[in-house]
């Protein structure tokens, strides 16, 4: 399993648009991606559950990636977070 931590910079947090972009991005990989905030965690493919986390600017999330392409996915997803969130 790979993981990284990231603090959300986008002033609107993980709203519909960024959440949608993220789901689209994650669909490229076979690995399972779990996003954790505090003690809550959610499969990042589940758009509405992800939006339901109410992740805001300044929140730190932990991203766990597990699967055959986890190395590639972790590197690229971290870059994606930095660029979009």
């Amino acid at each position: 399993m790979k993981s990284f931590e990231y603090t959300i910079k986008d002033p609107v947090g993980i709203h519909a648009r960024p959440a949608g972009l993220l789901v689209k991005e994650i669909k490229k990989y076979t690995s399972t991606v779990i996003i954790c905030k505090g003690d809550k965690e959610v499969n990042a493919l589940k758009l509405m559950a992800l939006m339901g986390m109410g992740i805001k600017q300044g929140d730190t999330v932990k991203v766990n990636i597990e699967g055959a392409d986890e190395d590639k996915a972790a590197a690229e997803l971290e870059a994606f977070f930095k660029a979009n969130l």
Partner: protein
Amino acid sequence: MISIQGKGVSTGVAIGPLYFYQRAKSSITRTKVKDSDAEWNRFKAAQAKAIEQLGELAEKARVEAGDSAAFLFETHQMMAEDLDYEEAIQGLIQDDKLNAEAAVSDTAAQFAEMFASMDDPYMQARSADVKDVSTRIIGILTGAVQGGIDSPVPVVLVADDLAPSETVQLDKSKILGFVTEGGSGSSHTAILARTMGIPAIIGVGKQVKAEYAGREVIIDGTKGEVIIDADEATRNLMVAKMEQLRKQREMLELLKGKPNVTKDGHSIRIYCNIGSPDDVAPVLGNDAGGIGLFRSEFLYLNCDDYPSEDYQFEAYKKVLSEMEGKEVVIRTLDIGADKQIDYFDLPKEENPAMGNRALRICLNRPEIFRTQLRALYRASAFGKLCIMFPMVTSVWEVKEAKKMCERVKAELTAEGKAFSNDVELGIMIETPAAAVMSDRLAKEVDFFSCGTNDLTQYTLACDRQNADLGRFFNPHHPAVLRLLKLVCDNAHKNGIWVGICGELGADLSLTETFLSIGIDELSVSPRAVLPLRQKVRETNVAVCRDRVLSELMSDINTI
């Protein structure tokens, strides 16, 4: 042969199959199913169809308004196939044996509630998205037709009456003409028909029976006649009439490129009213000098959430660029009254025509106003823009709106974004208060445009949507015409121009009046431009002015 008499509100003749507008059902039935696997498959098929439709909408939005507009539909797509959403529906169908419509409806309520209970207003608003997606799936399950028309060939559309939100979603390429049970000459169906240049007949009541569906119907918008299964003689007569109208049209074509000037040298500008960026082609095609009213509501009616600045900017820019420097008057948001939009969450009002609408909403909710003004000013760099505020009653409202314009310009300057310094600001004169106060209002703005539909309704205290008030709703009433003259005089004393953008502008029996009182611009539906030009060119103001003005001051009720 069956002949039905209604009231023609848009001229022309159309022949085609009769088709009843298919409205989505508002309530769903709740039943237990025996074969839950079959029910689940029924849901899966509807879900797939919804995702396909949303994909098409996204592509359409991308072409018309760019990526950010498309994204709304892509988000809806993802919601439709969301794993938790699907799982909840599956549970209700397979464990509780619920029918698919009820399962989707219950699940929608549950997810909408989740969003609604979040402490972030943006997220709370997402509950509307979940509901919208679910309504689409339920619509497919119950066989409701998206856009109201499911026919391979164009039809004559019959409806009780159409709401503005329904008219914007109609597939215009499928409509030859309109027949409505209720409605009035100022109803949205009538306005749409005139913009499209197709016949419309209103007020036929319940005379068009369900069994006529699919049969050939001929409608004559000049006479207000609806004929089903016409006999050969009648049919030939109507085909001949279509041909004659076509020839008349050709005659008018010869007026293209000619000035709108009277025999004694008075000139007047003839512009067009439009409701969407797609309407620019008929404006140019009919040789109009500009756009005198671009109703920006369609942007709001077409969206499931507040349209973004970029989305609006693209739409305004499209119209301004296509008009190639010709004047374009864009009216800021005019909703409320008979135009309601769910996501505005406006409380129900006893008397919406006199309620929270148009500029009042904008001044009460400056964030909505600011987004629109930013989009408008950014678009101003691409043509000749005039911004017009609707529903003004007081000078302070105009001052406040202008302050917002200054603020937006300062913001754009600070951000280094381009805009034109040549934007004219004007107001609609559509309340008696604005007409009476026009001497003072004229000092605040660059132009007036009279909205005669509302001005008539407020001056005469007559609801324009109420078909029963027909003879009391008289836009030729001297009270209305005297107000127009007052507005004209006050505008010219202060050196600003004045136009008419209501339906009255195209009324050829008033052209002499408008020319005599000195109206500078008439904004009409594209098809009315050339007939109006012809009328102007036949008029001699020196000859008719005294008669018209004395009629105006008399108490006769028709001019």
